[in-house]
C-alpha cells in the first residue's frame, strides 16, 4: 500500500491530507513508530487520528492530557470498591488469606485506562495522545517508556505485553517545549494552516452543499483574516462553522449584506479583543478582496 492509497482512504473519511502528512502517516504504519503532530490550534491535528482510524476501520482510543495527569489515570487502576466488597464477602464466608488476595488482584478487578486498553486490542487500534504538552514532564518520561517497549508492568500481576501494536498519534500545540527524547522517538510533522486549494477541498468535502462561488469567497476571506493581527487565529473548524452559518442564512454572496456578514463573524473570532479590532470596515476590505 502506498501513501496515495492512504490519502485516498482518508479523503473517503472527509479528511483532506496533504502529501507530506499522508507520507508521514504511511511511514508511521510501515516503520511502527509513533508520530508527533505539531501546529497551531485548529489545523486538524486531532482530526487526523479520527480519519486514520476511520480509513483503517480501526478503533480510536483517546487519551486527553492535562496538567496533573498521572499513571493511574492513563494506564490502569485497581477497582478498590469492588475489592473491598469482595474482601468483606469473603470474610463472611470464612475465606481468608492467600486465596482472597490472589482473587482481588486478578484481571477481573483491573480497570483498563487508555494506554493499557490500547495494547490489549485484538486488532491494532489508533491511540491518540492529545495535547501531550499539557501533561507534566514526569508523565512524558513515563510515556516514553511505554511507547518504546509496548509493555506495561503491573506489580501484582506481572508484565502485560502488547497483543498488537497500536498506531500512536501524539499532538502538541506548543504550551511547553517537549523533550528531545520524545521528539527523537517519534516521526515529526508540522501542520500549518492549509493553503487556499487545500482549504477549498476541505470545505467541499465537509459542506458539499456550498456553491463554488461562495466557497471561494469564504476561503479567501478566512485566509485574509488569518493574516490580520489576531489573538486567536481562526482554524479550519471555525471556517466550516462560518460557511455553515452563511449557508443557513441563505447568503450567496459575501459582499451582499455587510451587517449580516459582521454578525456571522462570531463563528470566526473567539475573543472580545479580536471582535473589537475587526470592525465593519476591516471586514468589508477583506470581503472585497476575497470576492
Amino acid at each position: 500500500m502506498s501513501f496515495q492509497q492512504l490519502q485516498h482512504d482518508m479523503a473517503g473519511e472527509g479528511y483532506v491530507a496533504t502529501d507530506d502528512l499522508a507520507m508521514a502517516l504511511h511511514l508511521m504504519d510501515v516503520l511502527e513508530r509513533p508520530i508527533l503532530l505539531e501546529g497551531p490550534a485548529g489545523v486538524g491535528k486531532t482530526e487526523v487520528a479520527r480519519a486514520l482510524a476511520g480509513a483503517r476501520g480501526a478503533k480510536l482510543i483517546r487519551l486527553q492530557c492535562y496538567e496533573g495527569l498521572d499513571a493511574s489515570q492513563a494506564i490502569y487502576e485497581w477497582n478498590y470498591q469492588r475489592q473491598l466488597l469482595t474482601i468483606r464477602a469473603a470474610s463472611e464466608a470464612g475465606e481468608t488469606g492467600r486465596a482472597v488476595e490472589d482473587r482481588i488482584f486478578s484481571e477481573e478487578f483491573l480497570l483498563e485506562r487508555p494506554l493499557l486498553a490500547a495494547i490489549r486490542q485484538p486488532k491494532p487500534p489508533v491511540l491518540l495522545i492529545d495535547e501531550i504538552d499539557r501533561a507534566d514532564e514526569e508523565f512524558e518520561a513515563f510515556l516514553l517508556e511505554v511507547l518504546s517497549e509496548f509493555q506495561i508492568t503491573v506489580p501484582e500481576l506481572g508484565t502485560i505485553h502488547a497483543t498488537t501494536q497500536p498506531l500512536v498519534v501524539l499532538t502538541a500545540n506548543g504550551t511547553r517545549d517537549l523533550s528531545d527524547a520524545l521528539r527523537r522517538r517519534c516521526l515529526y510533522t508540522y501542520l500549518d494552516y492549509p493553503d487556499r486549494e487545500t482549504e477549498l477541498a476541505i470545505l467541499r468535502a465537509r459542506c458539499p452543499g456550498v456553491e463554488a462561488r461562495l466557497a471561494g469567497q469564504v476561503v479567501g476571506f478566512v485566509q485574509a483574516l488569518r493574516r490580520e493581527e489576531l489573538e486567536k487565529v481562526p482554524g479550519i473548524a471555525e471556517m466550516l462553522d462560518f460557511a455553515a452559518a452563511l449557508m443557513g442564512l441563505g447568503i450567496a454572496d459575501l459582499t451582499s449584506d455587510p451587517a449580516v456578514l459582521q454578525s456571522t463573524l462570531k463563528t470566526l473570532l473567539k475573543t472580545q479583543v479580536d471582535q473589537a479590532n475587526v470592525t465593519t470596515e476591516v471586514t468589508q476590505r477583506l470581503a472585497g478582496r476575497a470576492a
Partner: protein
Amino acid sequence: MSRVTRFAARDPGPAARMSGFVAHLRENGLRLGVAETALALDALTHVSAARPEEARRALRPICTGCKEEAERFDALFDGFWMDAGRVRTRVMPASKAKGHDAVHSSRDAKGEAAGGAGQATAPDGGDGAAESDGEGRLIATETRNLMRKDLRDLVRQEEIAAAEAVAARLGQALRDRRARRRRAARKGDRLHFRKIIRQSLATGGEPVRLFHRKRPDRAVRITALCDVSGSMTVYAQVFLAFLAGLMRSDPTADAYLFHTRLVRITEALRDRDAMRAIGRMSLMADGFGGGSKIGASLERFAATYARRLVDGRSVVLILSDGYDTDPPEALAAALAKLKKRGCRVIWLNPLKGWRDYAPIAGGMAAALPHLDLFAAAGTLADLAALEPELARL
C-alpha cells in the same frame, strides 16, 4: 553552513550515502543519531525512493524534530542530494574581511545560515509584525549596522569567569523556588496529618509512624533578552559576559539578543568553549550596535518563542536602556502580551544607576506598569547587588 560535504555521487552505496546525508544534517545542527540513519534507510525501502519528491517527503518526518528544523530541511536536502554535495545557502558577503577568519570556522556554520526567513540569524524575516508595514523595513535597513563587530573584542576570558560566578548566584536566587503546596515526602518540615491518621488505622488508631510533607522544588525558568543596539554598546561587554555566564551555569536558561531583530542565542552559548561561544554569538548578532526596535523585538518574542517556552514558572529578564525607535504603545502591548502568559518580567536598565535618571523615555515609561522589578545594572557589581531583590521577587 558553507561546508562542502562528501560528494553524494561518489559514495559506494545507498547505506554510505544515507550516512553521508545524516552526517551532513548533523554538521548543520540537527541532532541525529545512528538509529535515525537506519530508520531513514528503512523508510526509503517502503516508498519509491528514486523520485526525489517522495524521498524528501519520507525523510522529513524522520530527520526533523521541531518546526525550525522542518523549515530548514528542504534547503539541506537540496544541498546534499541536488547540488552534488555543496550546501546551497551560502550567504556570506564576498567582500568579507579576511582578518576574522578564525571566527568563521565550521562550528559557527549554523550562525551563517541567514538565507531566508525563520532561520537562525533571521528569525523575524519576512512575515513578522515588525516588517509588515513596509515603512518599518526601510528604517530597519537604514539603521542596521552592517559592519560586523566581533564580540570577542569586547569580552575577555577572565571577565566571563567573574560574570559566571555572578550569574550563577543570581540564577540561583531567581530559579530555586519551592512550590506553594506541600506534598508527601520522606523528610519534610511539616507533619502529614491526613496520611498519619489514615495509616494509623492499621495500628488500631495509634499513630505509630509519622509522615511528613514538604514544599517540593519548583525551578523557575530564566529567559534573558539582551539589547545590543548602538546605545547599549558600552554596557554590552558586561551584559554579554553575564548572559554567557548565566547560560553556562543553568542548563534550562534561554537567551536572546535583539537590536532591530530578535535572535535566539541559546544554542550558541551552550558551547563548552566560552570564547568560541562568544564567537558564534557575534556571528548571529550581525548588525550589532545599530538601531533598536524593542517593541517589535519583544512582540516577536511574545508571538513566537514565548508561546512555547514561557509559562507561569518563568522569569523574563530584559537588559535594555529602553531607547526605542518603535512607538511606546508597541512596547506596552508586547509586554502586556508577555505578562498574559503568567511570567514575571524584570527590566534591568543601565541608565537607572545614573543620578537624576527618571524613566521618561517614551518606551520606558510605557513599559513600567508591566514590570515586576525595574532595577539598575551597569556593571557586574550592580548585578551582584541585585541578588537579595531577586530572591524576594
